């Protein structure tokens, strides 16, 4: 169980932050960064470990956000129950989309396209159907009680999202060690070879899609509780599909801590860009895009893998010198 230790250390270190820092700005920054990390952790299971690059993870984020909001506002369901149902709904959407896409044998570009298209369909539908509040969106009632899953103090929200991130870290760890995880990475590396070894590739990818959907949906559920508002652009917009894949890719796809590292770095860069330009829209995303291209080009294993990559290069250079000398 020695490998649990890094997770425990990281989570514990993050947990004490609100005790040391009381600035609402800083806490708000961290809450949003952790929420994006959570969305990215979902993507990482399917994309990082399974090699199935979704360009439409908004389908899960948005479903979680809407289910949480609508159940409370339209049906008077308890906030905690609505939150849990939102996560389950993400898993169900994962089953449906995954079953359709993987049964049809979609991979690579095609899988990216079909997820993108599903997100667009849901966004357009959500912008016209009455139950989502159509173009106006859905507003949650301010109700600062524990039972309503709303808190006066940002610190409590912070610990809530940190707890969710911690659960996702442990799930990722468990996946990585398990038979399912071995099969999933095998499918990523070479699907035909995996099938020859008895791996039911469709079932494995479907499983990854379900876990992935549930985790990213949890980030959406949290969004609704934290901001108390959701509309079709927030829920199913391209921004979250992009950020959900950006964070693991930059941090290190297929690694346990990749999405967390990526989210903190990406969000810090974004804030920096906005600070420099005085909140003008666009520049933060320009920075994200450049970082994405740079990481893919220069550090294909992400920031987490960078150390190993540099060490390997150094060793090779040394070996080269030794053989020449």
């Amino acid at each position, binding site marked *: 169980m020695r490998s649990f230790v890094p997770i425990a250390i990281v989570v514990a270190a993050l947990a004490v932050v609100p005790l040391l820092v009381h600035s609402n700005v800083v806490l708000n920054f961290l809450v949003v960064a952790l929420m994006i990390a959570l969305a990215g952790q979902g993507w990482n299971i399917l994309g990082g470990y399974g090699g199935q690059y979704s360009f439409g993870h908004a389908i899960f984020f948005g479903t979680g956000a809407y289910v949480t909001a609508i159940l409370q506002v339209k049906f008077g369901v308890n906030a905690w129950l609505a939150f849990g149902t939102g996560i389950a709904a993400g898993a169900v959407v994962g089953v449906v989309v995954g079953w359709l896409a993987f049964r049809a044998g979609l991979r690579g570009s095609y899988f990216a396209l*079909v997820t993108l298209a599903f997100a*667009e*369909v849901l966004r357009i539908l959500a912008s016209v159907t009455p139950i989502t509040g159509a173009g106006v969106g859905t507003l949650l009632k301010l109700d600062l009680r524990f039972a309503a899953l709303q808190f006066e103090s940002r610190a409590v929200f912070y610990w809530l999202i940190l707890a969710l991130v911690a659960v996702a870290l442990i799930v990722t760890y468990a996946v990585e060690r398990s038979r399912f995880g071995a099969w999933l990475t095998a499918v990523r590396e070479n699907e035909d070879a995996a099938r020859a070894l008895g791996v039911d590739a469709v079932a494995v990818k479907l499983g990854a899609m379900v876990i992935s959907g549930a985790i990213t949906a949890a980030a959406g559920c949290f969004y609704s509780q934290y901001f108390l508002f959701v509309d079709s652009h927030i829920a199913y917009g391209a921004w979250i599909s992009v950020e959900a894949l950006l964070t693991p890719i930059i941090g290190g796809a297929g690694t346990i801590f990749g999405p967390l590292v990526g989210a903190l770095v990406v969000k810090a860069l974004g804030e920096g860009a906005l600070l420099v330009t005085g909140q003008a829209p*666009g520049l933060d995303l320009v920075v994200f895009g450049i970082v994405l*291209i740079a990481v893919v080009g220069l550090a294909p294993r992400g920031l987490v893998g960078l150390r190993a990559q540099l060490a390997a290069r150094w060793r090779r250079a040394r070996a080269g010198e030794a053989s020449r000398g």
Partner: protein
Amino acid sequence: MLSPVILIPALLNGLLTGAVYALVALGLTLIYGVLHIINFAHGALLTAAMFAAYFAFQVLGIDPYLSIFLIAPLFFAIGYALQRFVIGPASHGEDRNMLLVTLGLAVVIENALLFGFRADTRTIDVPYAFQSIDLGFTYLAVPRLVGFVAVFAVAVVLWLIMTLTDIGRAIRAVAKEKLGAQLAGIDVAHVYAVTFGLGTACVAVAACLLMPTYYVNPGAGNAFVLVAFTIVVLGGMGSVPGAVVGGLVIGVVESLSSLFLGDSLGQVGIFLIFIAVLLVRPQGLFGAKA
């Protein structure tokens, strides 16, 4: 039942809009046919070209139809450089990386435009924007007719390039058998970049054809490109006739479904076709069964 008085113009309009869709799709399918990736930066490049056409008119006073001869070569060069110096080197030859890099480019271009020009919607004012030809039973808008003719001109030029020139032959060789082409001494990186440049030039032409009647803002290209994805999938990835026919079909479907369902649900119709085709027949209606 709707009367032919409404139906026929809707049909014709659909065909004419479809021609521009076809042009955007042509660029996409060309790139897919050779590089085997979907260029997710296609929409952002279309938007950028529309901005170029806009400023060519506003600043230099060049009519959008004339600026084709300026902007298409410019965007060929941009496309060539992007593939040669950004997408190619950053992807390490992995398809998954190419997807990510083109997505990253899309994010960069679109938001650089947003940062530079704000979210304002801009239009240009040309005298022929609302001119139309009376066919007796209906009217044809002049700009759409010009677009329709221009698309076929572009298709012919592309076909001539592909069949008559050395680079065209090299492109077809690489599309068919990359390794073999490489062994025969063809510079694959160059061919990839030329193809990407041609695809980008196609959207540049489309942008110039759109500007007289359409508007531009930093997200303007996306609407077209999602439709273009649909067309390319419908027509079969990499199939040029598929892109042209698919573009016309989708133009008509959109025009008719907007008539019956309203604009936004009309778009849902397209995406549902898209998803259905992907799931049932991913090789497209014209593509050969794998």
